[in-house]
């Protein structure tokens, strides 16, 4: 066993020396290889981070959202719905919500106006999201005017700017009191935008949704898991789109790597001949080249992955952010929580390290099985 370790150490030493002797070629290959891993890992880490972030945020969202449909479009919830829902068994808590969208022509952005359920905002005051505050240059105490869809001008005082930590969800948010909301949007009394429901037993969510649909045939219950799934597929789709765009570059690299890895220079062939002539077995040569391939591909993997980590979690994924995050006027400023998906890491490792190592070995094997007497004639 000790001999085996000594032998592997010698082979690794020799591989390192061999890499050092072909510095330019190997450094070039390492750079291109690391870049490939960096690009792939950046896309994967960023979308994974977004997916997780969305999952985390949505975990706190209501289990069921009930909307009313008229001609297939969302409409206001009329009075009486809450009473009907209250009679359905399994519903633990329900809340009628008031929210809507407002287009601000000043910054050409859409805001979400919402009446918070858990706090009271005095009349004539607003609480605004951090991106909106940034865009309009607002701080607490400032006055801001909005012209409603009916043409009337409303002036509010900014009571508070929401904290940066909540920016992913609150970037474009405007919180206001129920009376102000109804007045601003000419919202009819007793009507609501939608209803959120909590279900006592999580296994009963689908049953409750079915009962809701039966009791209120013009309504559409939306389950939290459906929203989560929609977000996940949205980010999957964006990830797939970026990877498709990058496919050409990936293919170009694959050809380059294959060419570099599979083409043996005359010098390398000569060296293999010498090693065999002086007593190395074909297996020894293959092991040595295997270590060489592993050293290059593993280094490239580590460099590329660490660079991607820094890029995504410390530099906010600057290169891919606009594509993967989606378009908006009010971009939220947020930091993704660093995390690694083991399966994703293993997939990336398998598809980058494994093919290169294999590509290295095939031509070496071909060269290494030839008779070593050729070295006597050179």
């Amino acid at each position: 066993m000790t001999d085996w370790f000594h032998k592997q150490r010698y082979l690794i030493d020799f591989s390192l020396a061999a890499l050092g002797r072909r510095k330019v070629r190997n450094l070039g290959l390492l750079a291109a290889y690391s870049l490939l891993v960096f690009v792939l890992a950046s896309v994967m880490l960023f979308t994974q981070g977004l997916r997780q972030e969305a999952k985390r945020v949505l975990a706190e969202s209501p289990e069921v959202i009930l909307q009313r449909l008229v001609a297939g479009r969302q409409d206001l919830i009329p009075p009486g719905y809450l009473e009907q829902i209250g009679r359905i068994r399994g519903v633990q808590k329900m809340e009628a919500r008031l929210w809507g969208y407002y287009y601000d022509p000043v910054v050409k952005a859409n805001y979400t106006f919402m009446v918070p359920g858990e706090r009271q905002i005095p009349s004539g005051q607003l609480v605004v999201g951090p991106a909106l505050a940034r865009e309009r240059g607002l701080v607490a105490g400032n006055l801001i005017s909005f012209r409603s869809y009916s043409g009337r001008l409303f002036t509010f005082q900014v009571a508070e700017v929401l904290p940066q930590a909540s920016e992913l969800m609150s970037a474009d948010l405007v919180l206001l009191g129920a009376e102000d909301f109804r007045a601003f949007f000419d919202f009819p009394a007793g009507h609501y935008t939608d209803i959120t429901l909590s279900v006592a037993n999580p296994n009963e969510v689908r049953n409750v949704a079915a009962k809701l649909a039966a009791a209120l045939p013009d309504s559409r219950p939306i389950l939290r898991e459906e929203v989560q799934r929609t977000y996940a597929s949205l980010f999957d789709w964006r990830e797939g789109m970026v990877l498709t765009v990058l496919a050409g570059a990936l293919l170009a690299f694959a050809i380059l790597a294959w060419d570099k890895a599979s083409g043996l220079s005359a010098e390398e062939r000569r060296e293999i001949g010498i090693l065999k002539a002086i007593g190395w077995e074909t297996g020894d040569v293959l092991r040595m080249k295997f270590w060489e391939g592993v050293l290059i591909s593993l280094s490239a993997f580590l460099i590329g992955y660490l660079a991607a980590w820094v890029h995504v979690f410390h530099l906010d994924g600057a290169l891919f952010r606009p594509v993967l995050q989606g378009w908006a006027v009010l971009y939220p400023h947020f930091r993704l929580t660093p995390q690694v998906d083991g399966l994703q890491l293993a997939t990336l490792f398998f598809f980058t390290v494994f093919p290169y190592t294999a590509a290295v070995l095939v031509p070496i094997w071909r060269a290494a099985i030839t008779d070593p007497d050729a070295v006597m004639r050179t």
Partner: protein
Amino acid sequence: MIEIADLHKAFNQGQHNEYWAIQGVSLSLARGQVTAFMGPSGSGKTTLLSLIGCLARPTSGRIRLDGEDISGLPERFLTELRRRHFGFVFQQFNLIKGLSARDNVMLPAYPLGLPHRQLTERADALLAQFRLGHRADARVEWLSGGEQQRVAIARALINDPPILVADEPTANLDTALSREFLAILGELSGAGRTVLLTSHDPLVLDSPQVERRVALRDGRVVEA
């Protein structure tokens, strides 16, 4: 004792460019002797040395090393045999550029997995024996022709093989360095090693260190 019986070696057999490099060579070579194979280019000297040194397999015929038939052994056993019994000094020295003299000397012993210190000590002792101790860390391409050849000899001896095979060892050396090589040859022979070499250099062939001369022509022995 190395016994060769009716040895044949063909290249590109069965093709339009088939060529028989060795045609029915039979010889007995005693252990501990310096034997020189001589003859013009294309006479089959190098091919015969490759076959004896297990670098290639004969097309037909037998080679016996101390009574054991080695001509039909599979590749793996041939490699093992080559490592244990033969040390090679090639015409172009065939050292690996970019590595130090010491690393080159140690190379044939890597597959054995000896402890590093033991191997380094052995390599340094051999380099010192050939007056290269001070050049152990120098890259081989920085060494002179004579120094490179001495590194090649040290490399050939690292696994302590009983037989040294040298192909045209003085072809790239001037007279002074050739004489130096012959002196080393004398030392090795004196230490009980068998030396097989090819040459058409009169300085080598006429030297007293060479105890037996085998003349080849067209793949056949013409004088033994």
